[in-house]
């Protein structure tokens, strides 16, 4: 087993990986940018090395600096976390060359699954369903019509050079195809300077369903069931759960087997995730393989009882997977909410600055993977994820109730967060029904999001502010004993204590 691992990441995921290492008796090296000397992940590690300036490109994305730190500290392996260099084949290749174990897939598999076109071709050959459509551009309308009939309606017209929804449109019938194609081409031309468009089957009311996989270096593969991650804003997942409300035993087994086949034919090893779109008629289509530990891995850990990070490390160390598919079960229900530093009432703009105070939810069935503490700074340079609040309960209904309570008890003062918004989503009847599709946020919050607030609570907040303000300015009105009791606490923030000499007991 490794004696020392370097964690090439920051924030909550670095903390989470360090915890796993500590439990396994493995020494840890954190790396940090100049903006992160005071960050939590630095405090949790045994050793820490500064790898450059605040800009990620000069630090967390600088392969040379990270390799240098690993060699200097004699780390035998590197865990990349998610983001940054996690899915960068040059980094994993470099690790291989330097004789450092990269805790993740081999570089060849990473290369393959990172290429959308090649990976789809590979899995399609193995009989894995992909979204019907064609990436090649056709010559004339009649060719498109023939192709469209094959794919079936409704279908999507997409710009070949496209992205971000531009030039994209839905066509519901044969009659409207011609007009749609012409309009799509015009839009594509004006947006990208290239009028090429192609057709793709339109997945209606899609759910994002993905399967967590563990694969060792000897061809043993298990899936740890699905996560549903349909609740997204700006194509970014914000709430994930397991199990999905859309699967039954049969479909789950079927998709799980397909996911394992994807892993097999791509030669993938270590932990990975196979993403699918699931339509309302229970057809599923392969999207891609995420070649890393995912943000949402805790929901799988809570329903299966496996520690995915520890298994990643074991697999990377060459251990054989001892888990059998037949011994794995999903138990209860788990939901994760990603807590971002962002303003839900102002178009989810990121928020940064000093976190003045945190009060964290705790108790039965609550797990908080956090990268922050009272007094820390949220730098502007990186992804604004602060923590992940994850709950587990006997069933989905209880998990929802637990999450609502946990969100209500989660206090972060000083920066804006998505907490109140998440509470609104989990509380909504549509979410409670399990009616979760990828357009959930758009549908539910089409007019934006404004917090419903309670007048009584506002009054209470004002009272508390007045109380603190008053006791700062007017100490004389307070009895000596009470004054002494409170004094150590009253010297915070911009305040000063009037009579500290008297207050020590």
């Amino acid at each position, binding site marked *: 087993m490794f004696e020392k691992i370097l964690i090439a990441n920051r924030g909550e995921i670095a903390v989470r990986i360090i915890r796993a290492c500590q439990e396994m008796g493995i020494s840890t090296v954190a790396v940090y940018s100049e903006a992160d000397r005071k960050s939590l992940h630095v405090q949790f590690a045994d050793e820490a090395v500064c790898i450059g300036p605040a800009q990620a490109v000069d630090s967390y994305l600088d392969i040379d600096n990270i390799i240098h730190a690993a060699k200097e500290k004699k780390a035998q392996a590197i865990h990349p976390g998610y983001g940054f260099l996690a899915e960068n084949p040059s980094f994993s290749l470099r690790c291989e060359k330097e004789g450092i174990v990269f805790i993740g897939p081999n570089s060849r598999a990473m290369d393959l699954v990172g290429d959308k076109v090649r990976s789809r071709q590979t899995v399609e050959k193995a009989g894995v369903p992909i979204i019907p459509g064609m990436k090649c551009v056709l010559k004339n309308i009649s060719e498109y019509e023939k192709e469209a009939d094959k794919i079936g309606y409704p279908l999507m017209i997409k710009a070949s050079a496209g992205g971000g929804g531009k030039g994209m449109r839905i066509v519901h019938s044969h009659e409207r195809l011609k007009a749609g194609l012409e309009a799509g081409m015009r839009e594509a031309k004006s947006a990208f300077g290239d009028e090429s468009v192609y057709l793709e089957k339109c997945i209606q009311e899609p759910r994002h369903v993905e399967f967590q996989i563990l694969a060792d270096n000897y061809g043993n593969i298990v899936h740890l069931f699905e996560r549903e991650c349909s609740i997204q804003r700006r194509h970014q997942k914000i709430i994930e759960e397991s199990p999905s409300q859309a699967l039954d035993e049969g479909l789950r087994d079927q998709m799980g087997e397909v996911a394992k086949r994807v892993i097999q034919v791509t030669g993938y090893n270590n932990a990975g995730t196979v993403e699918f779109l699931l339509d309302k008629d229970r057809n599923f289509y392969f999207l891609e393989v995420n070649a890393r530990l995912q943000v949402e891995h805790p929901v799988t850990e809570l329903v299966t009882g496996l520690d995915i990070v520890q298994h990643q490390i074991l697999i990377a160390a060459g251990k054989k997977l001892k888990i059998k598919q037949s011994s794995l079960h999903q138990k209860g229900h788990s939901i994760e909410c990603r807590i971002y530093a962002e303003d839900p009432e102002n178009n989810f703009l990121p928020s940064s600055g000093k976190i003045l105070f945190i009060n964290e939810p705790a108790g039965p069935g609550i797990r908080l993977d956090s990268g922050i503490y009272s007094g820390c700074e949220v730098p502007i340079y990186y992804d604004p994820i602060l923590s992940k609040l994850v709950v587990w309960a006997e069933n989905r209904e209880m998990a929802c109730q637990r999450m609502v309570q946990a969100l209500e008890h989660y206090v972060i003062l000083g920066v804006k967060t998505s907490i109140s918004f998440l509470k609104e989503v989990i509380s909504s009847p549509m979410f409670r029904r399990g009616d979760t599709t990828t357009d959930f946020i758009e549908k539910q919050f089409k007019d934006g999001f404004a917090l419903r607030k309670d007048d009584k609570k506002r009054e209470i907040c004002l009272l508390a502010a007045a109380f603190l303000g008053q006791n700062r300015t007017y100490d004389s009105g307070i009895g000596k004993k009470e004054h002494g009791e409170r004094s150590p606490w009253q010297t915070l*923030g911009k305040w000063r204590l009037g009579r500290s000499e008297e207050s020590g007991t």
Partner: protein
Amino acid sequence: MEHEFVVDNKLLKIFLEKKGEQYVVGVDDDQYTADIKNLSPHIVSLKIEDKVYRVFIARSDDGFFVQCRGDQYFIKDSDQDESEVQGGEERSREDMLKIKSTMPGKVIKIEVSEKQEVRVGQTLAIVEAMKMENEIKSSLQGVVKKIFASEGDLVDSDNPIMELEEKKC
């Protein structure tokens, strides 16, 4: 004593006076007794007719961040904001001339130059924070008077990146 705060741009008054172990509270025309205790630097416990409220509070430069049972408020000190509250429209027009970032971040691009005319909705600068780009647009027609920041600079949401001059047409 009476306290004046600004919440959601509204001026609110609270009367609070210690009376024995309790506090007498006046809100609007309502008056009642509250049991208020400091639990720790950032936690206050209020008890009003057996109902208990745990309030989390932190002071910032110009007010308090306060949270009670899931609802969070930013409560501004009234003295710092009286001008803003009273002369609403006037003030906001002045604000619109001072082009600020809505979030602290790094200036990726300045899209205009000094003395250049700009129209409503025109992108003036792009600021990046936390892997997200944000276009800062003009909300009025005018002329760029002065640019304070350069590309690559870190800016906050308090100090303007540039200032415009209004141009009536």
